[in-house]
């Protein structure tokens, strides 16, 4: 549950010298080569160590709601990226661009979150992301998870 090691261990994993004791499982869990976008309602912001999380309720194609969890950095890191504890509140309609969990679960590491005010806040994934451009969320595909019809 160590957070700064997220970025560092991603490098080390690839290099084959991963100090297992310092890795976070999400290093191996997220696919940093692709990005998806969802729009939904913020349920909860967990402003915590070692990672903060944004829980978002997203409507699927069949009308059901899926809860997505998006990982951010620790508060001190988020603040440096422009976040504040009250940057988003429950009920906010947001569009989230994220790198998905490899196991297909509704989880991801945040690339960008587009707020009702128009502000866009980053997560920590942009530092590692290697997929197509995501500047315009309208061009970012929705995750297969939402296609349940």
């Amino acid at each position: 549950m160590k957070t700064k090691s997220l970025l560092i261990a991603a490098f080390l994993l690839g290099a084959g010298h991963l100090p297992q004791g310092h890795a976070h499982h999400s290093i191996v869990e997220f696919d940093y080569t692709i990005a998806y976008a969802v729009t939904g309602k913020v349920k909860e912001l967990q402003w915590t160590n070692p990672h903060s999380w944004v829980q978002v309720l997203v409507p699927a194609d069949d009308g059901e709601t899926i809860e997505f969890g998006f990982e951010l950095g620790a508060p001190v890191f988020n603040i440096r990226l422009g976040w504040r504890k009250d940057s988003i509140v429950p009920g906010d309609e947001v569009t989230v661009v994220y790198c998905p969990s490899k196991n297909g679960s509704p989880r991801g590491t945040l690339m960008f979150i587009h707020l009702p005010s128009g502000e866009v806040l980053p997560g920590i994934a942009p530092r590692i992301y290697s997929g197509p451009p995501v500047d315009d969320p309208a061009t970012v595909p929705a995750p297969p998870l939402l296609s349940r019809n």
Partner: protein
Amino acid sequence: MTYTFMQTNARGAARAALACACLLASVELAAQGDFGMSAAPPIPGYEPSTDPRDFSGLWRSKPVPGSFLPFVLGGDLPFTDSAKARVEYAQRMAAEGTQLATPHIMCRPTGVNQAIGPIAPVYVLQNDEKMVFIVTDEIRDIRQVYFADEHPEDLEPSYGGHSIARWEGNTLLVDTIGYNGRGVLDNAVHSTQMHMTQRITKSADGRTLHIEITLNDPVTFTRPVTLEREWAWVNGQQPLEFDCEENPREDNFAGMVFEEEYLRPVCIQYEGEGEELSRVVCEQP
């Protein structure tokens, strides 16, 4: 002898090539000199002292030449057979995408690792009785080093061990024993026999601490391992906070392998159904 990171290894080189995106990010971090840590707002009143025996102040590990992180010791250490087997097992698990639960990941003190290579700034407080090394940010740690000639006889083993120190000229000799055997050292687990010694000297301008660390653990290493590190003076910053236990999300532990039962969490935070908020549930052992 100093061991360097990324020793010649065909597999390692191939993986390094694949990790070029990560490398770019990592180079950026290294250039910042803060290992991805965020600099806190400054506070005044921190001027380095030229008193060679005054280590008090705020310090930060410098990146290590040939390595990347100050706590990474490298892949080619003189491990004993049992320790080597453990290292290779851990690396195999990581390559397969399986996370092993370690004391570090499960929010236990890191002991030797933290002494060798803290990634957050280190506040050093000092008086006639002791020197205290404090990290308030990740990974929160306090290490009290007593000016004494001998360790107490009734030492209770701990993650961080017990440290004493004396001056040899203007070099501080620190001696640490009393580890509880739960310490992680890169991919190895060091034993209760770990005996860490440090020689710490301050530069004449008061802006660098030179630290030579010797790790002596006959269960883990076939011979003593010596490392060199440098800590750079940092002008004052507000102490920030790291609360590792704060958010024990269920998905943190999903798929994690718990070889040691004591590491399996008692309390887990589950996400609620629908509009229901997340909640922590603790099971009595």
